[in-house]
C-alpha cells in the first residue's frame, strides 16, 4: 500500500542516505578536479575511518561523535601520505597506471583490514546518538539525521573553503593550469597534497558518522565508493556541487526503487539512471567536460 506516509518516509530515508553518498562523492570529485585522478581506494579510506571510530569506542569508550575530528585528521594524513608516496611520481603517466595504483592500494587496505580485524561484521553498541524521532507514523533515526546534517555542514564548509578563501583560490588555480599556477608562486605539490588530504577527510567524516547506524566490516567501503564514483560521473566530473546533488539523487533513487520495485534492484536502478542520463548528457548533469 502506497500511502502518503510511506512515500514521505521513503523520501526522508533517501535524502538522509543521499547526504552521506554526497559527501563521499564530493571528496572523490575534489581530488579528480585537481589532477584528473580518481582515487579507487576512496571506499577503503572510508572503511579505515569506520574502524578507527569502532576501536576508539571499543578501547577507550570514545563515542563516534567525539572521534569525528580525529577521523577527519587521520584521514587527512592518510590522503596526504598517499599523494606523496604514490601519486606524486605518477602525474604524467597513463590513465591506466593511475587507476591501478589506487586500485591496488584499495585491495591492499581491504585485505589488511581483513587480516587484522577479520571479515566479521561489527557495530557500535549504544552510541550517544540513538533512538528515533516519531512524527505520526513517520520515523527518523537520530543518528541518520545527525549524519546527514554533518555531511551538509561539511559540504558547506568545503564550498566556502574552495570559493571564498585563498587556499581555495590556489586549489582552483592549480586545477585550471598547473604550470601557470606555479609561476604565480603557488606550490602545486603542496596544493595537490592538500587536495588529497581534504578529499580523504571527507570520507573520514562520512565514515565516522556512518558507524552510528551501519555495520563495520572490511568490505563496507566497496559499495560506497562505487556509488560515489557513479555519483561523481552523474553530477559531472569537476563539479563539486554536481557531485553533491547527484549523491542525493542517488540516495532518493535507491530508496524509491527499493520501495516501488524490489530492494534487490536498488543498485540496478542507480545504474539505469546513470546510463539514461549519460546517454543524453555525456558530460554528466552539471559537468564541464
Amino acid at each position, binding site marked *: 500500500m502506497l500511502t502518503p506516509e510511506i512515500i514521505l518516509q521513503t523520501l526522508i530515508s533517501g535524502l538522509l542516505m543521499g547526504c552521506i553518498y554526497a559527501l563521499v562523492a564530493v571528496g572523490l570529485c575534489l581530488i579528480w578536479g585537481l589532477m584528473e585522478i580518481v582515487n579507487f581506494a576512496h571506499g577503503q579510506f572510508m572503511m579505515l575511518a569506520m574502524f578507527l571510530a569502532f576501536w576508539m569506542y571499543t578501547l577507550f569508550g570514545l563515542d563516534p561523535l567525539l572521534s569525528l575530528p580525529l577521523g577527519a585528521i587521520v584521514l587527512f594524513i592518510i590522503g596526504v601520505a598517499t599523494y606523496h608516496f604514490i601519486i606524486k611520481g605518477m602525474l604524467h603517466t597513463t590513465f591506466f597506471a593511475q587507476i*591501478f595504483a589506487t586500485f591496488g592500494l584499495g*585491495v591492499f587496505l581491504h585485505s589488511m583490514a581483513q587480516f587484522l580485524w577479520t571479515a566479521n561484521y561489527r557495530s557500535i553498541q549504544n552510541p550517544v546518538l540513538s533512538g528515533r524521532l516519531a512524527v505520526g507514523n513517520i520515523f527518523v533515526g537520530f543518528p541518520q539525521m545527525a549524519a546527514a546534517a554533518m555531511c551538509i555542514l561539511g559540504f558547506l564548509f568545503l564550498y566556502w573553503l574552495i570559493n571564498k578563501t585563498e587556499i581555495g583560490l590556489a586549489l582552483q588555480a592549480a586545477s585550471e593550469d598547473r604550470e601557470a599556477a606555479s609561476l604565480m608562486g603557488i606550490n602545486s605539490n603542496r596544493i595537490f597534497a592538500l587536495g588529497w588530504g581534504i578529499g580523504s577527510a571527507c570520507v573520514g567524516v562520512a565514515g565516522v558518522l556512518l558507524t552510528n547506524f551501519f555495520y563495520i566490516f572490511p568490505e563496507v567501503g566497496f559499495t560506497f565508493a562505487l556509488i560515489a564514483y557513479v555519483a561523481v560521473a552523474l553530477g559531472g566530473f569537476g563539479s563539486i556541487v554536481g557531485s553533491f546533488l547527484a549523491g542525493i539523487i542517488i540516495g532518493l533513487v535507491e530508496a524509491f526503487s527499493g520501495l516501488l520495485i524490489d530492494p534487490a*534492484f536498488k543498485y540496478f536502478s542507480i545504474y539505469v539512471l*546513470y546510463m539514461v542520463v549519460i*546517454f543524453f548528457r555525456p558530460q554528466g548533469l552539471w559537468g564541464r567536460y
Partner: protein
Amino acid sequence: MGKEERSSMDPTKKNWRQVLFLSVVGIILLVFPHIFTLPFPQHIMIMIFLYATLAQAWNIVGGYAGQCSLGHAVYFGCGAYTSSLLLIHFGLSPWLGMLVGAGLAVGLSLIIGIPVFRLAGHYFAIATIAIGEMCQIGMVNWKGGGGANGLYLPILDEGFYNFEFHTTKVPYYYIALAIAAVTFYATHLIEKSWIGFYLRAIKGDLDASRSLGINVARYKSIGLAISAFFTAVAGTFYAQYVLFIDPESVLPLMLSVLISLVAILGGVASVWGPFLGALVLVPLSEFTRTYLGGGGKAIDLMIYGALIVIIARFQPEGLMGLLKKFR
C-alpha cells in the same frame, strides 16, 4: 613504439629470430604437461592461458583502441551461462554452446557499444561498470538461470565431445593452450591489419582520426566485438573446467578489473604484454593463495595489492616496458 628499432634491424633476421623464439616457446608449452604431471602446476598453466586469453581479448579494445572497459565480465559470463544453460536444458555439446555464446556476446557488445562509445575517459569506464553490475544483479535475480545459487553442470562421460575430463587435466591444458594461441594469433593479425592501424589512430587522437575519414564508431564496435567473442569463448572454457558457475564467479566487477589489470600490468597494445602479465600475476596469485591464503587471512591479497601499487608506481608502462629496458 619501437619503430626505429624495427627499421634498423634487418627484417629477415628479425623474422628468423621471431620464428626461433616462437618455436622454443611452443615446444616448451607442448611438452610441459608431460614433464610436470602433477595437477597443481598444470592447473596454474591452465589459469595462465585463461587469463592470457582474457587479457589479450581485452587488449584489442582496451589496449589498441584505448577504451578502458571495466565490464568485460559481461562477455565472460555470457559465454559461460549460454553454453551451460544450453547443455543443461537441451543437451547441446558445449562446443556448439561455445559458438552460440560467443555469437551472443558479439551481439551484446554491439548493443552495449551504442551508448558507451559516445563517452570518453571515466564516463566510459563507469558506464561499462554500470552495465556489468546490472548484468550481475539481473543474473542473481533470474531464477531460470540458477539465480544466486548458480548452476552445476551435469557430470557427463569423459571425452572431447562432452568437453569434460575428470581423471586428468591434460586435455584442458591443451584446449586452453589452443584457445590462447588462436586469440594471440588473431591479435597479431589485427595488429598488422588496417583495423589495428585504425584502432591505434582512434587511441592516439580521436578527432584527427575522425577528420581523416575513419568511421570511429564502427571500428570501436569491431574491436569490441572481436574482444567479446574471445572473452565469451574463455567463459565457456571456464564453465567446462570448473563445472560450476554463479554470478559471483563469472560476472563480478572484480573479474572485469582483473582482466584489464593483467593486460595493463603486462603492457597494453602489444601482443606479448597480456601473456607476460598473466605469466607473472596468475602464479603469484595462485601460489600466495595456496600457501598464505588459508583461513580467510587475506595475506595473499595484501601482497597482491601491494605489488600492483609498486608495479603501477614504478613501471607504469607495464612489464613489457621493463623488458624493453633490459634488451
